[in-house]
């Protein structure tokens, strides 16, 4: 098991290294930080002065190694815009994203799993059709549109919830629903497919033949096996919610790292963009590693792979 974990962790480190090179190369290709810092009204001389002041005129590989060395020593650099450490900027924003991601994730699981079980128990019934229809809608409706409709109905019309911000708990309701709604279909479909598959297996038939009560059969015996594939997918979904909520956080002006990413891209603040990419990649790597470990623990056959 330890070998397995070390192997997977090694792959994770390689992924992070590749991401850091890509993040650095792409942000440098896409953004001329000197021009961005100087602003629209800057002359060529202004831009050149900033280029020299910040060291943007050094060869790219030298800038990369200096940056990588800083990252390894725990220094994420200095934000060109905010003129303070990137780690400080990011840490301020992380709690909002964590709360939003966790709320959306729990909401998605709480709705998707029971719905998936019900649909799996009665394939082709009205509830199954309803659940599948819900899943199709969830996949088809863009989340920004869903979010805007939520704002129109609950903020503008009913005035029940704030349209933007992240300073009170009510501000999290609409974004969490919008974010969860996007993740629910996949989780629901997987639970449903897993249930249908498991309920047809021999050991379930045996359990029923032994006279176990149906809830016991479903919840204790079937569900445990049916949700195995859900673990890996849920890890990816949680990663997506923690890192991929750029659109939702931007629409709702929530002070999370998704919004910070958008903000830093539009303000051309490469150190913050690079740090966020690495943090999000780390989330994915850690969650995937965790999912691998849980799966390997549940199914020993996986440990040899």
């Amino acid at each position: 098991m330890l070998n397995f974990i070390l192997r997977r962790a090694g792959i994770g480190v390689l992924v992070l290294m590749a991401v850091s090179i890509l993040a650095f190369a792409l942000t440098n290709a896409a953004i001329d930080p000197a021009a961005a810092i100087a602003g629209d009204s800057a002359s060529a001389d202004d831009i050149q002065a900033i280029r020299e002041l910040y060291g943007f005129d050094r060869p790219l590989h030298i800038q990369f190694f200096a940056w990588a060395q800083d990252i390894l020593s725990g220094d994420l650099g200095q934000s060109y815009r905010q003129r303070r450490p990137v780690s400080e900027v990011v840490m301020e924003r992380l709690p909002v994203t964590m709360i939003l991601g966790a709320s959306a994730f729990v909401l998605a699981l709480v709705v998707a799993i029971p719905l998936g079980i019900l649909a799996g128990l009665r394939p082709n019934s009205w509830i199954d059709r309803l659940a599948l229809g819900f899943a199709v809608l969830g996949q088809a409706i863009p989340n920004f549109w869903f979010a805007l409709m939520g704002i129109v109905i609950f903020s503008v019309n009913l005035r029940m919830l704030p349209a933007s911000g992240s300073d009170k708990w009510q501000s999290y309701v609409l974004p969490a629903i919008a974010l969860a709604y996007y993740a629910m279909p996949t989780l629901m479909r997987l639970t449903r497919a897993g249930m249908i598959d498991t309920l047809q297996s021999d050991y379930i038939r045996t359990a029923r033949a032994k006279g176990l009560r149906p809830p016991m059969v479903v919840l204790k015996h079937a569900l445990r096996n049916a949700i195995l594939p859900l673990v890996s997918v849920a890890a990816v979904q949680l990663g997506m919610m923690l890192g991929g909520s750029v659109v939702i956080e931007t629409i709702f002006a929530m002070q999370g790292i998704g919004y910070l990413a958008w903000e830093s891209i539009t303000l051309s603040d490469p150190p913050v963009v690079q740090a966020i990419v690495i943090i999000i990649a780390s989330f994915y790597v850690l969650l995937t590693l965790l999912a691998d470990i849980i799966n390997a623990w549940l199914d020993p056959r996986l440990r040899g792979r």
Partner: protein
Amino acid sequence: MKLKYILGAAAALALNLHVGPTMAQQSENTLRWTSNVSLTTVDPYFNYNREAMLLNGQLVWDTLIYKTSEGEYLPLLATEWKWVDDQTLEFTLRDDVVWHDGEPFTVNDAVYTFNYISDAENGVNVQSNVNWIAGAEAADENTLRVSLKKPFPAALEYMSTLHAIVPDGFFGDTGQAGANGRLVGTGPYKLAEFVPGDRIRVEASDVYFDGSVKGQPTFDAVVYRTIPDTSTQIAELLSGGVDWIWRVPPDQAEPMSSIPGITVSADETMRISFLSMNLRDIEGGNPLQDIKVRQAIAYAINREQIVEQIVGEGSKVIQSPCFRTQFGCVKDANSIGYDPEKAKALLAEAGYPDGLELKMTSYRSREWTEAVSGFLNAVGIKVSASVLDYSNARDRVVNNQVHMLLGDWGSYGVNDVSALLNNFFTLSEDDMAQDATVSEGLLTAAQTADTDVRMENYDYAVRRIAEQLYWYPLWTHPTTYAYAEALEFQSHPDENPRFFESKWADQ
């Protein structure tokens, strides 16, 4: 994005919403406004956004003198000022001003401010706003003397709008605002809360000096919030979450104007759009070096129609490559109008009877770019257009990769053409025309205090740019404001919303 606006507006109208801003903010005498700009620093020098420099800058801090939207200078922190010679300005400072922490404002604060911002090592973002200042000194305890590196007649334009005076030692050793523990200003509002990227709350100062042209504070508090998405900004205004928004897209302004409790107004600004033509040598030849081709391009574009149907209310077609109130701007320097047949004839005369292909870049609006390209296509000029962000579009200009730039410039509200044309026609890498006579005229005008000499040189430069069609002047940009009906608000063409002039109707 446009789809979002349409969907948002359609849904709002379909639901027949009876909306209007809540009265809570009015009873609390607070103004809450929003924009999509994320303010990451609170000081007025390391954030080039208009929101920071002109709004929070002028609420929390004061300049030495104040400039009205008509361009008149009035006393603010200085009671009098004069040019000692063409490189020295002298200001007599008020002696009854205190900082928000109660400390008196002295000449040392002003000396520190100018010496700090003019030092290139300190890295003020827009160096051209400050790099003509040599330094400052106290002539006596109430007199400030600012020395310039060279004659710079537009100095007062900058000093009256952009050069907020900060307390002595304000940036400390770290360069961060308030590093000396005194994050204070002399303005009508004091800083109460700053969350980088999110919000700034300022509250009425109870020590603001009497007799200021800005007047005593009219609100108890003014709160700025960043909301990046325009649809969300509109939703916040409709639901009473904020009281004032600006830069509302024209397609949203119209449905909003029919909503009770909301005032929508579109006003012209100093920002102008222009089609800049590249006359430099390009590999494979450059058709734009022939003035007939440039004229054909100008005759092909129906500016009136674009303004009416796309740019929207508040915009006007311009006939000169500058804004009419700017010093040095010659009225009607260009007389070309829409005439597609003439455009085709000119192309044929220039040796392109079957048309030609040109590359264009722009950075403001895809719709405007497509409209201009469409008119050019109609006379046989096939345009390959790329809409980029400003720095990438500029890169294409600098690297000589395009024939035309559909650009625009706001001049920072500076009422002098040097803030506009000197960026583009002084033989720098941004200069697509590379006309030495225009450059000489502009530089002479910008470095001379003699008004007649300045005007004569600007007259030459502006006319030459227009006649030679280095720029084809297009239109002025409108800004559309939407706000709670109960708010008394007056907009100005320098795109500077002066919140200190606003108040709630019943206050």
